[in-house]
C-alpha cells in the first residue's frame, strides 16, 4: 500500500465485518522517540487467543469465498520493514485492538497519506458505526468523534450526506494541518 492511511482503511473494514459499532483509530507520532504507532480498536465480536495469533498468516481468513486474507499480513510486512511490529489483542465478545508500530524516520515507512479520505470512505460504507479518530504529534492532539457530529445533526441527517462528508473531510484536513504547524 502506498499510504498508511490505506492500511487503516483496509484494517478498519475488519472491525466493521466483526460487527463493531464503535471504532477508535489512534495515530501517535512521536518525533521525539522516533516512533509512529497506529492503533485500531473496536467493540466487535473479537477472537479467541489461537485465532488472534493465526490472522497474521496470509492463508488464514474468516471469509468463505477464498482462502487468503492479506490485510493484516500486508500491514505486518510494512511494520517489519520499518523496525516496527504489529500486535493484536482480542477478547471474544469484547473486541479487538490492533497496534502497528513503525520507526518514524525509517526510509521505507510509507507516508501517512490522506486520512480525511480514509475516514470519509469508512463513513460512507458504514452508516451505523461511530468513529473516534485521535491523531497525536508529540504534545499536540487532534480529535474527531462522529458521536458529537451526530448529536449536532440529529437523527434525520446521516453522516454520509455529501455536505456533511465534505465538512468532516475539511475538518480533518484543517485539524491535521494545524497539528503540523500549518503544513499539510
Amino acid at each position: 500500500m502506498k499510504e498508511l492511511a490505506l492500511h487503516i482503511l483496509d484494517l478498519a473494514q475488519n472491525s466493521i465485518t466483526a460487527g463493531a459499532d464503535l471504532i477508535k483509530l489512534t495515530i501517535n507520532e512521536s518525533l521525539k522517540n522516533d516512533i509512529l504507532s497506529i492503533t485500531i480498536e473496536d467493540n466487535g465480536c473479537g477472537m479467541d487467543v489461537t485465532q488472534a495469533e493465526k490472522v497474521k498468516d496470509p492463508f488464514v481468513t474468516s471469509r468463505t469465498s477464498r482462502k487468503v486474507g492479506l490485510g493484516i499480513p500486508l500491514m505486518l510486512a510494512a511494520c517489519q520493514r520499518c523496525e516496527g511490529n504489529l500486535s493484536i489483542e482480542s477478547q471474544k465478545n469484547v473486541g479487538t485492538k490492533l497496534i502497528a508500530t513503525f520507526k518514524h524516520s525509517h526510509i521505507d515507512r510509507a507516508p501517512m497519506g490522506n486520512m480525511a479520505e480514509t475516514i470519509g470512505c469508512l463513513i460512507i460504507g458504514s452508516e451505523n458505526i461511530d468513529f473516534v479518530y485521535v491523531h497525536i504529534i508529540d504534545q499536540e492532539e487532534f480529535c474527531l468523534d462522529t458521536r458529537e457530529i451526530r448529536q449536532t445533526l440529529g437523527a434525520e441527517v446521516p453522516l454520509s450526506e455529501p455536505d456533511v462528508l465534505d465538512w468532516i473531510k475539511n475538518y480533518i484536513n484543517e485539524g491535521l494541518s494545524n497539528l503540523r504547524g500549518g503544513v499539510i
Partner: protein
Amino acid sequence: MKSLKELEEIRKKTLETINIRKDRTGTRVVVGMATCGIAAGARPVLMSIMDEVKKNNLADVVVAQTGCIGMCRFEPIVEVYKPGEEKVTYVKVTAAKALRIMNEHVMQGKVVDEYTIGAEEK
C-alpha cells in the same frame, strides 16, 4: 476552522431535501473496497463518485461499498445497477474514468463500453 455551527447550517439545509433521498429507488453505484481494491486505488475512485453526486445533486443515486468481488486483477471495480437494467461492471477504474461513468452512464444512461469488463477481456 470548521465549526459545529457550520454543521448546524448543513443540518437545516439538508432537512429540506432529505425526504427526496429517503425513498430512493434510483441507481446504485457499488465500489469494491477490499484489500485488493484499496491497494489498486479504489479510495480516490469512491471520492470522485461522491464528488459527482454532490456536485450534480444526484438525490436518487446510492453509493455503496462491497468487499472483494473475486476479480482482484481488475480492481478497482465499479458496478452500476440501474433499475430494470442489467448490471454493468467497470474495471481498472480511475478517478477520471469514474467521472465519465457518472456523467455518461449514471446521469445520461449511456454505458461507457470501453471501460467495461467485456471490453477489457477482449
